[in-house]
Structure formats: C-alpha cells, structure tokens
C-alpha cells in the first residue's frame, strides 16, 4: 500500500530512490512494531496462563514430586507407570470408549435426523426444535450430570419408562453397574452433544444446491443413493467439525463424571481428567498426574490433527 503513495511523487534520481526504499522499509518495520504491540496483551495472558503451565506440566512429568517438598528427577519412570498401571491406562481406554458414544451417536443420529427434516426445515415445528434441541448445549454440564444421575437411579424415570414398555427385567441402578456405568455415561454425553451436531449438519445441508437433488430424482435415484452420493460428500467439513468437538469433549470429560460417579463404581468410569484430579490433589502424585496430562494432550492431537487435515483440505 505504501508503493502506490510513492508513485505519485515525482521521481528525482537513483540516489533518492534507494533512500526512499530505505525509508519505506523503516516505515514498514515501525508499522509492524505497532501491530505487534497490539498482540502483546493477548500473547502475555496466553503465555502466562496457558503456555507456561503447559511447559511446567511437561517438566513435572519427569519428576517425582508431592507438590510441597523437594522433587527428584525420575526420567521416564512416570510414563512407564502409565503403561504398567491398569488403572491409569484404563482411564485412557475408557475415554476411547466414550468417544464411540459422544461422537458416533450424535453424528449418525444427527445425519439421519437432519436428512429427514431437510425438506421442511423452515416450518414452525423445525424452528421450535432448533431452540429445544439446543438447550443441553447451554446448561452447565454439572447440571446435566445431576439431572441424569437422578433419572438413572434404580427407581428413577428411566427405569419407570422401561418397566412401562415391558422391559422391567433390565432395570437397575445404571450408574452403579460395573459393566454399564461407562456406556450410560456415554449416552449422557450423546444427549448433551446431539443438538449441536444435528443443527451443524442441517446448516451444512441447507447450503447444498437443490438442483443436484432434482437432477438425481429425474435420474431415478433412490433416497438412499441421494444421501450417499450427494448429501454425505457435501458435508465433509461439517462432519469434521462435529467429530472434532465431540472427540475433544469425550477425551477431556470431567464435569459429568465428577458429579455423577467420581470414577466409580470401582474404577469403571475413571477418565483421564478425573484421574489427573485425584492423583494431583488427593494422592499428591504430581509427577504421575502430569505424565497422564501430557499423554492426554498427545492423544487429543493424534486424533484431531488427522481429522482436521482430512476434512479441511479443500479450503485455502
């Protein structure tokens, strides 16, 4: 932009041209400095309260430390413990199982629902449903946890419904069952995340050119074929977003587990977030807790980066 300003002025010899170029560079530099100064407040807050702590977590993970006394360097011992101790790697395994529920159910059910209501997405019912289905997304997860713990007790509403439809035989205290507490937790997460995914996918579908569908119908394509060859490929980016949001929610889950089971019964719903909290603030094993935290960050990146790459490639 400074070039256009210089061309207006009359040129006066090669010497001053070099001078001007020099002046231009100085101006560009000082402009850059001003711009960088604007970034400083955000960068400082980010560095002090996110980057520095993250660096410290990595540092702590190589030490044996109870948080108060002296710390001893133990090298990779904490990481070895992650692989040896079934409770620790179990917590990571549990968070993978939660991914299946948090991610697959909202995305598949969301695709199905959005595809079904696509034809009348501007009707009054559909508009009301936008508001209603979104409510789980705005309430605190803790509130969702308290509500569902109550619904899932042995005499709770869920069992009442099951008995009413003739499934009285399978009723139980769902969150107190060693085998079923984790899947039940997964379903609570699916309930929270469904509305967001469905509306994201619906918004994506509304951007698809209707002419594509009309052409397909003239060619005699079935609804199923339409879905596979038109809808699904056009939603690549939206599906990528849903997967990213839900996977992070599953791996970083803490609030609902804390409120409804605290990781129990036994360790059957122990997730990394809960385990880090226990290790750090109750068992005072800060090194071990930090190693698990680093492992969690690596797992998140290992899953999210490929998803982002695969679904965002046609941008830029």
């Amino acid at each position: 932009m400074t070039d256009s300003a210089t061309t207006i002025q009359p040129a006066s010899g090669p010497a001053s041209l070099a001078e001007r170029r020099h002046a231009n560079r100085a101006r560009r530099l000082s402009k850059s400095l001003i711009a960088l100064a604007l970034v400083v407040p955000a960068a400082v807050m980010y560095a002090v309260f996110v980057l520095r702590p993250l660096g410290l977590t990595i540092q702590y993970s190589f030490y044996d430390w109870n948080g108060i006394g002296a710390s001893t360097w133990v090298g990779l011992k904490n990481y070895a413990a992650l692989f040896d101790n079934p409770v620790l790697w179990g917590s990571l395994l549990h968070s993978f199982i939660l991914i299946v529920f948090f991610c697959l159910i909202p995305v598949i059910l969301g695709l199905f629902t959005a595809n079904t209501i696509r034809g009348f997405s501007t009707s009054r019912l559909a508009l009301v449903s936008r508001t209603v289905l979104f409510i789980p997304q705005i309430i605190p997860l803790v509130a969702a946890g308290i509500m569902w713990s109550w619904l899932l007790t042995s005499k709770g509403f869920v069992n009442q419904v099951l008995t009413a439809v003739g499934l009285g035989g399978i009723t139980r205290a769902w969150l107190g069952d060693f085998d079923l507490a984790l899947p039940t937790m997964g379903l609570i997460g699916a309930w929270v995340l469904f509305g967001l995914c469905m509306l994201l996918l619906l918004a994506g579908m509304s951007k698809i050119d209707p002419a594509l569908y009309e052409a397909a119908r003239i060619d005699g394509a079935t609804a199923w074929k339409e879905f596979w060859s038109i809808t699904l490929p056009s939603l690549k980016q939206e599906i990528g977003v849903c997967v990213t949001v839900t996977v992070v929610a599953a791996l970083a889950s803490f609030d609902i587990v804390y409120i409804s089971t605290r990781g129990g019964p036994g360790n059957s719903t122990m997730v990394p977030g809960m385990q880090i909290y226990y290790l750090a603030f109750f068992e005072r094993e800060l090194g071990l807790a930090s190693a698990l935290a680093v492992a969690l960050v690596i797992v998140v990146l290992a899953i999210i980066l490929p998803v982002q790459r695969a679904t965002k490639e046609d941008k830029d």
Partner: protein
Amino acid sequence: MIASRREVWMGRILLILLMAGTIVPFLTLFATALHKPGTYPEGLSWPETPYWSNFIDAFKVAHMDQLLLSSVLIEIGVVPIALLISTLAGFALGHLRPIGSRIIFLVFVLGITLPYEAIIIPLYQQMKDFGLLNTRWAIILPLIGLFMPFSVMWMRAHFVSMSQDLSEAARIDGANLWQLFWKIHLPLSMPALSSLAILQFLWTWNQFLLAIVLVSDPLQRTMAGSLGAFQGQWGTDIPLLCAGSLLILTPTLLLFLIFQRKFVAALLQGSVKG
C-alpha cells in the same frame, strides 16, 4: 424442494420424539423439586401437594444471591478484557499482518483443543505463588488466557474477511491507525464481537474444573462450580437438590430463551471456526 408426505410425517414424529427426549428430563427434575423435602420420590410423579417452598429454601441454603453476584463479578472480570485483547490481536494479525504474524497465529492455534486438565496442576501452583488461590482472580486470569486461542482465531478470521480497500480509503482521508480501528473496523465488527461475547459468557458461567480446584469457597466460584458443592452438601435431600439445580441453570436458560437466535448462531459458527 421435493419431499413426499410420508417423509414429512416421519420427520415430524422424529422431531417430536427428540424434543421430548430433551425436555422430559427437565420436567422430571421440576416435578421432583416439588416433592416434600427429605423424601425420595419415584421417577416422574406429580406430588399431591406441591412444595413450592423448596425453591425458596434452596435459594436460601445455596446463598443464591451471593452466587449470582459472584458469577457476575467473574463474568465482568473475564469477558470485557478477553474481548478487548483478542480483538486487538485479531485486528493486528488479520488486518495489519505484521512481520511474523503467521507464526504468532500458529502458536495461538496450538492451544485450541487443549484440555484444561492438562494445565490445572501448574495453574494451582502458579496461583499459590501469586497468592491468588481461593480468590475470584484464580478463575478470572486463567480463563482470559484459556479463551485466547479461540478468541484470537475468531477475531482474526473476521478481520481477514474485511476488505483492505476500506482501510486504504480511510488512510487516504487521513485517518490514523487508532481512528481506523475505533471509527471504522470496530463498528463493523459488532456481529462477530457479540457472538464471541455470548460464547465467552457461557464458557465462563459453566466453568467447573477451574472453580473446584482453584477456589475452595463455593461463594467465590462460578454458578456451575458452586453446584458441585451444593450437591456435596445437600445430595441426600433429593427434592432440595433438584430445586437448587433448577435455580442454578435458570439464568442461562432465561438468557438463552431471550437471545436464542443469537445464541444458536454463535454456537454454530463458533464450532465451525474452532
């Protein structure tokens, strides 16, 4: 769009079922909250005599007035500052694009999927060193930092989409950098800013982990954080717990119902950009 009658009816039934699945849990919570205090009601059942007083009792025992004040104070500490500094950074990185802006931006993006659990241990130590443990600052300051990756990315994306010609024209008219930002770009950024404000408000209000780890006094926490303490204290009195939970989720619910369009739009855009 062509949609057969059968498809439309199927869709309507599906939607109604899904809405019922969303609302019935809240109705159960509400019905339970009206039962006699100290009882253990079964499933979804309407009490013979509704105890509306449970809501007043829950309000009193949870010190709801102080909780509301505490949450509001935390919001006031977080949202305006987070908005301001992320807008400045977004403007610089997206519009002025100084030397090194790509790398700076990449460093910000790195933090976007970071689970809060990953830094909670050093944050605790850090707050202890600063002498801020058990004060609202222990929630406010880290939250501002944690909001930066998303907020800077959001504002940068907005300023990238703004035309450079506009600034060019303003510069020719003699506007300096400050006027350019304050008089031209800021007013045009209001839609992006208000959506970001909604997101930051919600994330602050619902923040739980930082609240329970860094602040031990429930009355200095966020609403969500104090709900954890409320459950610990009154978890055995189910009707009172349900009444308390409803009270605690009412403020966000009310705001959502008033500004629902803005909320839905903000959260949808927010997840696409994140």
